[in-house]
């Protein structure tokens, strides 16, 4: 079990042990409540449901209050499941608190959140296209996508656009996972995790923090 729900507090800088300045993101993670334990017998799969951040009492909907009431908790704003494999052993039961201490010997984490919405964006911003020169005779198409297809039928599309052709459109506001952040510092008193680099979403946005899947968790 190595997942927490939290909130992005913001970014700052710290000096590392070698005197280099490092950009860090401060996350407030937990304490999370185990809202429900799902098992294959009752739910068809096994998972832990975590909740984070209280809803204002006057705004709690009755179903949410009922669900939370089963574990004698207040209703939570951010609820998320941690899917468990068959072999995963879990000591946590419904109603338990999960705190940053579970990341005690974790060195790298993945952070998932909802990225900032960028609105309708062009291909340069959205897909990193090169655009056209600023001068040398370029007129009115400095940030244009260029050719998107031809009339030729021998490309397999018969004069139609290839599906998935990258074009301009809505950018951001989707779930993004940012991987392999070095976990620099844990503060149990304020429930803080300090990690290297930037994570998706605005300050105050909700994030899921997991033990890194891909990075080898070497000794600290």
């Amino acid at each position, binding site marked *: 079990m190595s997942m927490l729900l939290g909130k992005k*507090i*913001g970014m*700052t*800088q*710290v*000096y590392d042990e070698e*005197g280099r*300045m490092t950009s*860090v993101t*401060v996350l*407030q993670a937990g304490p999370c409540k185990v809202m429900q334990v799902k098992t294959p017998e009752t739910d068809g799969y096994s998972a832990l449901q975590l909740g984070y951040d209280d809803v204002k009492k006057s705004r709690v909907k009755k179903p949410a209050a009922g669900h939370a009431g089963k574990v004698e908790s207040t209703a939570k704003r951010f609820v998320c499941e941690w899917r468990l494999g068959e072999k995963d052993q879990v000591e946590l039961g419904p109603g338990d608190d999960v705190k940053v201490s579970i990341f005690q010997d974790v060195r790298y984490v993945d952070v998932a959140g909802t990225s900032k919405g960028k609105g309708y964006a062009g291909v340069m911003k959205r897909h990193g296209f090169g655009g056209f020169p600023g001068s040398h005779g370029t007129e009115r198409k400095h940030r244009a996508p260029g050719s998107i297809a031809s009339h030729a039928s021998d490309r397999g599309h018969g004069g139609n656009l290839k599906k998935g052709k990258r074009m301009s459109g809505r950018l951001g506001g989707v779930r993004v996972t940012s991987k392999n952040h070095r976990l620099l*510092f844990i*503060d149990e008193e*304020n429930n*803080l995790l*300090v990690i290297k680099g930037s994570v998706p979403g605005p*300050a*105050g946005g909700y994030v899921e923090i997991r033990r890194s899947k891909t990075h080898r968790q070497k000794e600290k």
Partner: protein
Amino acid sequence: MKTKLLDFVESASLKKEMPHFEIGDTVDVHCRIQEGNKTRVQIFNGTVIARGGRGINETFTVRRMVGDEGVERIFPLNSPNVVDIRPIRSGKARRAKLYYLRNRSGKGVRLSHRHSTHTVSK
């Protein structure tokens, strides 16, 4: 609340003790530099002409004349590589930024001495 938590994280990187020095002071800045595998302390001597930033980003600018060429270095105040700052001589300055020294040369760059208690003699 947010700022408080960010300040808390920053505070771990701030220096516990900070030598007192003022704009116009002549200071010796002891900075750690790395040469290959060895680290040694180099002293940069000059006049403090500006301080900027706040918190972890606070910096100060030291100007000195090498020959008739002005050399300025901007040091992060809280960097562990800035080992020590020793005010040697206090100079009379009536403003917070002494950028006017850049337009002067020769004897004009000197600031008249001001009596002070925070300087240390060499």
